[in-house]
């Protein structure tokens, strides 16, 4: 049959009516799900401890908080930005909240202030990007350095011991509701909320328009600068929240926390389908990206692979995963 006929001849049903399996196979995230599934199966055979509740719990705890960062990063990437400061802004949130707490401030108030400060940092970056007109990359790099410096300044380089945090505060990071750690519940709430919002709300749809073609979006009356400003701010605000959860979890605030974390977070978002040129990406995909990276690390540790081989294997799996995912998506088209 001739495929170049007019499109009217084509009778493509609206997406909603396609059977579930077919819809699944058409999704951007399917490749990743399959790769993760394959790793799961391999690991279940390789280690008897893999498929235990305790291991699953430990593995999910390992990526849950980073998950918040990846949500912010994905949304920012969709809008066409990038943020290298996530690691140090997260550290700064811990440090500032911890510092305030040690100075006698109620830990909840201290946390709120730290999150507000991170939001302010995001707004600061957003200002330089949208008003001054600098590139996200360079602005966030400068902020990454400044925030790390501020961490040093607040702590004199020394980790703050926050063992005295009240139990109800530590509960956020260390407690469980039934068998489910609070951290994982928070993570799931954020993922589901943001995934839904990003897919369905008009507000977040504008993020896609802005990232896809800022000019076209602006011509349609979208305040693209505002959108970019907000996604930049949101990303930093989520860093603040993540920093507080980490603080509650570890009972300490480390000025060196999250060195190099930005690359892991960006990698996760990109593996999950976020485009570095903006305009596409999904929370579900990005979370699968975090899960994949974390799964590989956990598996290597579980199998006690030699340290000297771990990085090589990790890098190779990363490359293999994106390659496979790429071909699976190409095929699907």
């Amino acid at each position, binding site marked *: 049959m001739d495929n170049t006929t007019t499109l009217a001849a084509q009778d493509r049903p609206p997406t909603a009516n396609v059977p579930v399996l077919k819809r699944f196979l058409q999704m951007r995230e399917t490749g990743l799900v399959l790769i993760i599934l394959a790793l799961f199966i391999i690991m279940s055979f390789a280690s008897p401890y893999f498929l235990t509740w305790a291991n699953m719990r430990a593995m999910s*705890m390992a990526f849950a908080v980073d998950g918040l960062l990846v949500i912010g990063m994905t949304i920012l990437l969709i809008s066409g930005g990038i943020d290298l400061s996530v690691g140090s802004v997260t550290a700064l949130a811990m440090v500032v909240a911890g510092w305030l707490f040690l100075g006698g401030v109620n830990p909840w108030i201290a946390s709120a202030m730290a999150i507000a400060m991170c939001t302010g940092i995001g707004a600061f970056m957003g200002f330089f990007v949208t008003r001054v007109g600098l590139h996200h990359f360079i602005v966030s790099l400068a902020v990454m350095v400044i925030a790390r410096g501020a961490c040093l300044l607040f702590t004199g380089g*020394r980790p703050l011991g926050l063992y005295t945090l009240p139990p109800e505060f530590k509960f956020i990071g260390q407690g469980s509701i039934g068998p489910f750690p609070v951290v994982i519940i928070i993570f799931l709430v954020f993922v589901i909320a943001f995934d839904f919002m990003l897919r369905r709300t008009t507000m977040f749809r504008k993020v896609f328009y802005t990232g896809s073609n800022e000019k076209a979006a602006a011509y349609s009356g979208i305040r693209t600068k505002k959108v970019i400003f907000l996604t930049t701010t949101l990303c930093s605000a989520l860093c603040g929240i993540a920093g507080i959860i980490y603080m509650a979890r570890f009972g*300490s605030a480390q000025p060196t926390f999250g060195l190099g974390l930005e690359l892991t977070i960006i990698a996760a978002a990109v593996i999950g389908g976020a485009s570095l040129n903006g305009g596409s990406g999904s929370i579900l995909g990005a979370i699968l990206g975090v899960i994949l990276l974390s799964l590989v*690390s956990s598996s290597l540790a579980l199998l*006690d692979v030699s340290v000297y081989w771990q990085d090589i294997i990790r890098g190779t799996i990363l490359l293999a995963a994106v390659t496979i995912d790429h071909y699976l998506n190409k095929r699907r088209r």
Partner: protein
Amino acid sequence: EGIMCEPGETYVMNVMVSGHPYWVPVYQGFKQAAEAFGCETVFSGTPDYDITKQIASFEQDMIKTPAGILLHPMQSDPFIEPINRAIANGTEIVTFAADSPNSNRSGYITSDNRAEAKFAAEEIVAQVGDSAEYAVLENPGQSNHDLRVTALIEYMEANYPDMKLVGRQATNQDSNAAYKATASIIQANPNLAAMWIPEAGSAEGAVAAKLEAGSDVLIMHADVTPTTLEHIKAGNIHMSLNPNQGVQGFMGFMAVHLANRSEIFDPFNDWKTSGFNPVQIPFMDNGFAVITKENADSFDLNVYMEGRDPA
């Protein structure tokens, strides 16, 4: 002349990653010794983990021709030439915590990582018996951390062949990485009895993982942070071995100052003909402290630093 400093006589302490808290008590010791002799001190180096930058900062110190530099060389060989040049320029050099043995530095002061490892191994065996499973976290690339781990493993192999090493993960002072690695190790080895961790950052993550897993694995580590101190007090961490940083700085100053005042020493050796500094202290051990539940309160750096000037 004499042992006291002249006005403006300055001694420099040069380090890499200069924001790291390890240097803080070292520099306090350095300063205390210097004040006793009426000398001035400067804390210098680079905030980065970058050898090029540290060499540049060292050379810039050298330009000001200070009396001496207590140096923590990020790497031994790259510093040979700059150290020798500094000495030729009239600035005495003593290394600490990391050495440049092939240079002409007049002394090296450090804590003996092998002794720490041996102590840790004996303590672990004393606590969990000599046929148990143990694991280590490590930080390949950083020599003192590396030595603490490899020396312990070697010691175990040589003396307690029934001790089984079941986990060995690189976590590079990152508590979140240590958290993840420890969680996996604990899952994979239900009989794990003890862990040895060469620094405190990873220990923080490891203890969080231990508590979450409800495991009773014995954790021992080197260095200390406020958080690990609290965990020691609470019994979550068995003990920590902490180098005597103050002594390191104090004796480091003594070594470099004496090297600079070598003329007050007329030794029984060939220094006059060889032209070598007669005050040569090839190796000095500053010792380490064992931190347990009982003495933990004395190791709170934040308490110690109250009212002191960090720089």
